[in-house]
Structure formats: structure tokens, C-alpha cells
């Protein structure tokens, strides 16, 4: 789904929460998933104006999980390692932003090249 404004973030969170709920996630995990979607969507709007967020159920060895992929065609990230450090500028050094997302999920992957946009793929397995 398209992410271009705050209302889209709300929709993405709503769908993410519903999908996660149907997969068996509950309680604080639903909050974590909504937070991850918000941070990823926020990054899209802040750095690329528009992008997409795809939500899908995933499975590994019979264990269900939630997959979230955020994709944009913005300026990209020049130095991924420093963008992920706790003191990254985007999170004001407070652990928010991409580095925060990484700490909330089980699997985290960033693909980005300057000028070619950014794709962040995360997975959270059902506990």
C-alpha cells in the first residue's frame, strides 16, 4: 500500500494490527508491530516523501510470523552502518528511527544505494 501522508500511516498500522492479530499475535506484540510500521512509514515520508509498505504473513519451519517491507525511491542511505547506530541523526540519538526498528524485530534487512532508494525488510515471529 501507498504511503504518502499521516492518514496512510494510520491505515497501514490498522492493517498490520489486523493481520498480526489474525496470525495469533496479541498484547504488547501488536503494539510493537504498529510501532515498527509507524517508524518505517515515518522514514518514508521524511526522507522520500512517498513509498510503499507491504504486509504479508510469513512462515518458517511451521512457525508463523509477520513480514513487513518498506520501499521507497528516495535518496537512499549512504552509510547504512551509521544510520543504524544508536546515535543516528534521524533518531536524535535516542534510539528512535531505523535503529529502533531493528531492536524491535527478529529479522532486519536494509538494501539501499545512494540515489536508488531504500528497501527495509523485517520479520517478527510469533512467540
Amino acid at each position: 500500500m501507498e504511503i504518502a501522508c499521516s492518514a496512510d500511516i494510520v491505515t497501514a498500522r490498522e492493517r498490520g494490527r489486523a493481520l498480526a492479530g489474525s496470525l495469533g499475535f496479541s498484547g504488547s506484540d501488536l503494539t510493537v508491530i504498529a510501532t515498527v510500521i509507524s517508524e518505517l512509514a515515518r522514514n518514508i515520508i521524511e526522507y522520500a516523501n512517498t513509498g510503499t509498505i507491504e504486509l504479508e504473513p510469513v512462515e518458517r519451519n511451521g512457525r508463523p510470523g509477520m513480514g513487513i517491507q518498506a520501499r521507497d525511491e528516495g535518496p537512499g542511505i549512504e552509510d547504512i552502518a551509521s544510520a543504524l547506530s544508536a546515535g543516528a541523526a534521524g533518531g536524535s540519538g535516542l534510539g528512535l528511527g531505523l535503529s529502533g526498528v531493528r531492536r524491535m524485530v527478529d529479522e532486519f534487512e536494509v538494501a539501499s544505494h545512494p540515489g536508488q532508494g531504500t528497501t527495509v525488510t523485517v520479520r517478527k515471529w510469533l512467540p
Partner: protein
Amino acid sequence: MTAPRSTKTALRDLAAQYSPALREYCAAGGEAALHRAYQLGRRAILSGFGVLEIMSLHQEGLVAILLGRLEHGEQARIGRRASEFLAECLAPFELSRRGFADAHAALSAVNQGLQMQLLEQRKVAQVRSDVIGTVSHEMRTPLTSIHGALSLLKAGMGGELNAHGQRLLEVACRNSERLVRLVNDVLDLERLESGTMTFNMRPCALKPLLEDAVEANGAYAAPSAVTLVLGPVPPGARVRVDCDQFMQVMANLLSNAVKFSPAGGTVEIEAQRRAGRVKVSVSDHGPGVPPEFADRIFQKFAQAETTCERKGSGLGLSITRAILENMGGEIGFTVAPGLTTFHFELPEWRARGLARQRLAEDDPCLVGR
């Protein structure tokens, strides 16, 4: 502790948005209100607020909602939704907490490494200082006795020597003197660096100190016909120093200046007041300091390659600097063609009112001699 006005305003602003959003979610649910909760939490972190501030906002909002609603069954729903709302608002704090935990773990590891390095360095420095101290101290006693015996021989106590013997004896005597100086310098520097050198700090008038220094070092300048010239000293200038250590500083700077002066030259001593400090300069017209030597001139055992006679221990300027730093001063030098100036600054000592008068009466050092 009271929060600054801008913080209070930010908190009021946050409260003004928290309550309506909480009320909306408790009444109708909906993702939009939860997203707002998350945004408020994020903003709270960036404004420097913590979870306790959020809790008090929450309590305030919840009490207001509960006061207006007493219908049966509704309280449970409100309670559940209020908790959900609060959780969303606190989620950014969880992000932040994990970030800090990671950063803390990384920094702790680095810090531990540094602490161990520091400890190791201190141990090494202590061992080094102990060895230097012990060896120098053990050397001094036999050395003093060797030097004494040689001096007596030179004075003719062992009978007349032939010319060759006399020359050999002079070489031995000169070198034993040099060795005594070296050992004393090493011991001084070790005491200065380990902080065990005692300083008897007293306010002293600058002019008599400089006059004494010129007089005491005149004998050293005489053989090479170098004249020590003391320029004007700012009237009433006083420094709080250990007089003996100050003399040591002046002796080191003056003997260096004399050593590098051409025969028949002059060494000028000047003093100035500047911004609460007193600056003393010692200038000579010798060959100057080779540029490649300039940045290690105050290091231990530093002597320029061009020093034709390696007379000193190479510790003089290190000791001078250490003494000055112990007395709150600093040293530097400038080199211009035909003029080399070593200068040091010390805080100017100023007594106030009665204290000045009393000290002036009690302390002959203060009023001069």
C-alpha cells in the same frame, strides 16, 4: 528542581493533546487515536520527557473521563482502552530504552578496556618512577664521596702530581661534578613529577627576586664576559612562589642564556604585567633554537644536536617547566634572528585591604630587602 518555562509550556501542550486523544479512543476506539498516542510518546521523548510525565498526563486524562461516565459496564471498557492507549504512547520509550541499553553495553566495553589500559599505564609509571628514585638516591652517596675525594686530591692533599696527572684529575673532577648535577636533576624531576616536591609558597615582591637572581648568576656569566642586564620591573608586582624554586627557574634560564651567548654579549631580563599575570623574559643573542628541536625542547634529556658542549643533564628546561607549572605558571619561548627569548608567566599576587597591610608587615619577603 523546577522545570524551565519552555519545558512547562511543552508539557502543557502535550497534556492539551493527550486528554482529547485518550477520550476519543476510550469512546470510539480506532487506529487514528492510537497513532496519535504513538506520536505523542515520540514527541515527549524528543522534548526530554520521561514515562513519569506520561503517567501523570494519563492519570489526569483518565480521571476526567471517569468522572463524567458512571454507566454500568462502561468503566471496564474505558479501563481497557486507556491501557491500550497508554501502551502505544509508551512504545517509543521502549525503542529508546533498547537503544540506550545497546549504546550502554558498547560504551561499557570500551570503558572497561580504557580503565584497564590506564591502570596498566599507572603501574608502569609507578615502577619506572620507583626505579629512577631508588637508583638515583643510591648513586648519590658514593658519588658525593668520589667527588669529595677528587676535590681533595685536586687541592693537593695527596701531594704534588705531575702535569699529566693534574690534567687527568681535572677531567675526573669535572665529570664527577657533572654526574652529581645529573643525579640531582633526575631526583628533582622525579619529585616534581610525582608531586612529592614541597613548595613553600609565599607572596614575594618580584623586583628583589629578579635582582637576587641576576646577582647570584653573575659569577657564572663572568668567565665568558657576558653581562646580565635587568630591565624595568613593574612597580609593586608580586608573585606567590617558593623563593628557592623561583631562583632555580631563574638560574636554569640565565645559565642557558649565558651558555649560548657570544663572548662579551648581554643577556636581558625583563618583566611585564599582563592581564592579571606577570611575564618574565630572558633574552640572549645566541644562535637560537634549531626549528627541528623546537617542539621537544622541554622534553626530558632533550639537547639539540648542535649543542657543541653537552654540559648539562638535558633536564634543565623540563625541571624549569615542571616547577613553573607547580606554581601555577607556564613557560614558552620565541626565536627571532639574533634574539632568543625564554619567557614564563605567573599569576600576579594581589592582597586585598587589611590582608595586604598585615602581610606587608609580617613578611619581609613581600616588602623586599
